[in-house]
C-alpha cells in the first residue's frame, strides 16, 4: 500500500546517516518550514480558483476561463498582480499595528496547520493536546483583525472589526463545545488518537444523534468563525464596503485573503478529522474484506477528499444565503446554538458513559 510514512522515514534515515544529529535536525526543520509555506501558498491558489469555479457553477456562468487551461492559472496571475501592487499605508493609520496585523492573522493560520494529520503518519507535530492547541491558537486571529480595524483609522474598518470581535469570540464557544462532545467519546485531545479511534467507523456514524447535532453546530459555528457568508458581517460588502480590510492593498490585503482561505481549510480539516475520520478510510466494523479494499485508496486522498467536501459545503452556503444582521447573529449563537450544544454535550456524555455508541 502506498503510504507517505515510508517517504518521511526514508528522508529521516538518510539525513541521520549523512549528517551529524544536530545538523540533521536543523535540515528537518528547514524542510518542514519550506513544505508548510509551499502548502500554504498552494492551498491558497487552489482554494481561490475553486471558490470562483464553484460560485460560477452556482450562478450559471463560466467563471475565470482565460488564463491557462479553463482559467486554472487565474489565481496565479492574480497573485503576481497583488505582489506587484504598492502596499499603501494610509496617513492617519498607526503604521506599526497596521503593518503588523496581516502577519498576525497569517502566522496564526500557519501555526494551526501543525497538528493536522494529512495522511497516515504524516503530520508536522503530533502534540497530545492537539484540539486544545488548535482552539487556543486560532482564537488569536481575532486580535489581528481587531488590530487591522483599529489601526486603519477608518470608520468602516472599525465597525467591521467590532463586529468581527463580537462574532468570533461568541462562536468560539459553540465550536469548543461541539469539539468537546467528540473528545468525550475518544477520551483524547490528540488529533492522531482521535483519527485512530475511528478505526471501525467515523464518529458521525458511530456517535448517534448527538454526533450529528454537534457536526451541524460545528459547521455553522466554523462558518461564522472564518467570517464567511452568511456570517460575513466583518466585511459585509453592501454595508461596510470591505470591513476591516478596507484600507489594505497589495500583498497586505492578499495576506488577509489568503489567511481566510487557509482558515477555511483548517476548520474543514479539523471537522473532517473529528467527525469524518481524518485520513482514516471508510471502515465498517468487522467487514474485514470491505475495509481492506478501502485501505487501498491512499490515506491522504481520504483526508483531502473529506476536507474539500466540507470546503465545498461552506462555499455553497456563501453563494446561497443572504447575510444575517449583527443582532440576529449574536442571538443565534447565545440563544440557540450555545444552549443546544451544552445540552448536546450532556447527552453525549451520557451516551459515552453508558456505551450506547457503536
Amino acid at each position, binding site marked *: 500500500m502506498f503510504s507517505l510514512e515510508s517517504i518521511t522515514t526514508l528522508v529521516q534515515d538518510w539525513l541521520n546517516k549523512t549528517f551529524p544529529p544536530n545538523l540533521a535536525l536543523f535540515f528537518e526543520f528547514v524542510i518542514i518550514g519550506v513544505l508548510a509555506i509551499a502548502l500554504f501558498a498552494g492551498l491558497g491558489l487552489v482554494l481561490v480558483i475553486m471558490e470562483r469555479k464553484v460560485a460560477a457553477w452556482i*450562478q450559471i456562468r463560466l467563471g475565470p476561463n482565460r488564463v491557462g487551461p479553463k482559467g486554472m492559472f487565474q489565481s496565479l496571475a492574480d497573485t503576481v498582480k497583488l505582489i506587484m501592487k504598492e502596499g499603501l499605508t494610509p496617513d492617519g493609520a498607526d503604521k506599526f499595528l497596521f503593518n503588523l496585523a496581516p502577519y498576525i492573522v497569517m502566522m496564526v493560520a500557519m501555526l494551526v496547520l501543525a497538528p493536522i494529520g494529512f495522511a497516515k503518519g504524516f503530520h508536522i507535530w503530533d502534540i497530545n493536546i492537539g484540539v486544545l492547541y488548535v482552539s487556543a491558537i486560532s482564537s488569536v486571529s481575532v486580535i489581528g483583525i481587531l488590530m487591522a480595524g483599529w489601526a486603519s483609522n477608518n470608520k468602516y474598518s472599525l465597525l467591521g472589526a467590532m463586529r468581527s470581535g463580537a462574532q468570533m469570540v461568541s462562536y468560539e464557544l459553540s465550536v469548543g463545545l461541539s469539539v468537546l462532545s467528540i473528545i468525550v467519546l475518544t477520551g483524547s485531545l490528540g488529533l492522531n488518537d482521535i483519527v485512530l479511534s475511528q478505526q471501525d467507523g467515523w464518529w458521525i456514524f458511530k456517535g448517534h444523534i448527538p454526533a450529528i447535532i454537534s457536526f451541524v453546530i460545528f459547521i455553522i459555528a466554523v462558518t461564522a468563525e472564518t467570517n464567511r457568508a452568511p456570517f*460575513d458581517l466583518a466585511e459585509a460588502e453592501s454595508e461596510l464596503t470591505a470591513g476591516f480590510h478596507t484600507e489594505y492593498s497589495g500583498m497586505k490585503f492578499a495576506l488577509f485573503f489568503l489567511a481566510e482561505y487557509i482558515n477555511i481549510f483548517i476548520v474543514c480539516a479539523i471537522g473532517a478529522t473529528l467527525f469524518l475520520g481524518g485520513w482514516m478510510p471508510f471502515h465498517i466494523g468487522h467487514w474485514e474484506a470491505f475495509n481492506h479494499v478501502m485501505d487501498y485508496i491512499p490515506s491522504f486522498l481520504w483526508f483531502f477528499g473529506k476536507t474539500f467536501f466540507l470546503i465545498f459545503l461552506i462555499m455553497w452556503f456563501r453563494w446561497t444565503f*443572504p*447575510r*444575517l444582521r449583527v443582532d440576529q447573529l449574536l442571538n443565534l449563537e447565545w440563544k440557540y446554538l450555545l444552549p443546544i450544544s451544552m445540552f448536546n454535550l450532556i447527552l453525549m456524555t451520557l451516551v459515552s458513559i453508558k456505551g450506547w455508541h457503536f
Partner: protein
Amino acid sequence: MVEEIGKTVEGDLVINVGPQHPATHGVLHLVITLNGETIKKVEPHLGYIHRSIEKMCESLSYRQFIYTTSRMDYLSAHINNHACALCVEKGLQIEVPERAQVIRVLMDELTRIASHELWWGAMAMDLGAFTPFFHAFRERETINDIMEETCGARLTMNYMVPGGVMADLHPNFQSRVKNFLQLYKRKIHEYDELVTGNIIFQNRMKGVGYLSPEDVISYGVTGPAGRGSGVSCDVRKLYPYEIYSKLQFDEVLETAGDSFARYMVRLREMQQSIRIVEQLIDNIPDGEYQAKTKAVLKLPKGEFYQRVETARGELGVYIVSEGGTTPYRIKFRSPGFSNLSALDHMTRGEKLGDLVASMGTLDLVIPDIDR
C-alpha cells in the same frame, strides 16, 4: 436611548455612505449618524448626477425632449417616454390609434417586469446573497433582447413618440414574448425557493423599515413602496390612461408596511404585469402604429399635467406652454425623490444592516432622483 435618536451628540460616529458605495447603486450620498450599530439619523445628499434635464427640455422641441427623459429613470425608460408622449398628446388632443396604445401598454408592462427583475437581484445582493442577481438577469436579458429587436436599444429605448410609437413591432415580437412568458413561468418558483422562503431573508426583512399609511401619504411615497403599507396609489387603477381601464389586473396591496411587504408587492406585481401581457399579446389590433401629426408640434398656451405609474411609483410630467415650439417650463415629479425622503423616518433606531435592506425595498434609481 429613544430620546437620543435624532440628535447628534459629541462622540457619535458619522459615516459617509456613498457617493461611491456598493449599497447605494449609484452616486447617492448618505450621511449616517450612528450610535454603535444603531442609526440615529440618515441625511441624503443629492446632486452628484444632476444633469439639469428639466432645463435642457426647455430648449428642445416637443418631439426631442422625450429622449432626454429615458435617462432619468433608466430602468423604466419606456414609461418615462410614455408619460411625456401622453402629456404632449393631451395638449394637442391627438387621438392615438388603438394598435399604438396596445403596443405602448405591452412595452410598459415588459419594462416593469424587467425593472422589478433587476430590483430583485440587487435587493438580494444588498442582503449579501450574490446568486439571485444572476438568476434575475437570466430573465431580464430575454426582455432586453425583445426590446432590442423592436426598439433598437436595450436600455434607453426612445420608442414612444407623440401620436404613437416610432416603428411597428418586429415580426418576431409575439413569439419572443410568448417564449419569455413560458421561461418566466418555469423559473418563477426559483425566486421563492432561493430568496423569499429563506429564513435568514425573512428575518432580515420582517418588521424593519416600517412605514405607516399616514407616513406614506405625508411623505408622498408612491408605487410598490406605498402599496406595501396598504395605501392604494396605483395610477393605472385610479387615473387610468391608455387602455388600462379595459384590462383585467389587480392592484397589489399589502398591509404590513415593512420591508417584506414592499418586497412581496413587487414580486406579486410582476405576476400582474405578466397577466396584462398575456391578455394583450394575442390581441394586438391591426392598424396604424402612429397617428398623423404635424411635422412641428406646437402646444397651445396653457398648463398640462399627466401622471403614469412607473416601476417605482407615480411619475408626473408638468408642461407649461407659451404656445411656442418648445416648452416654457417642464417639471417632473419623480417617484424616487419622494420615496427617498421617507428613508430617514423608516430607519431611525434600526441597525446599519436594516438601512441597506430598507433602501433596497425602496428601489432607488439615483438619476431619477437627481434628474
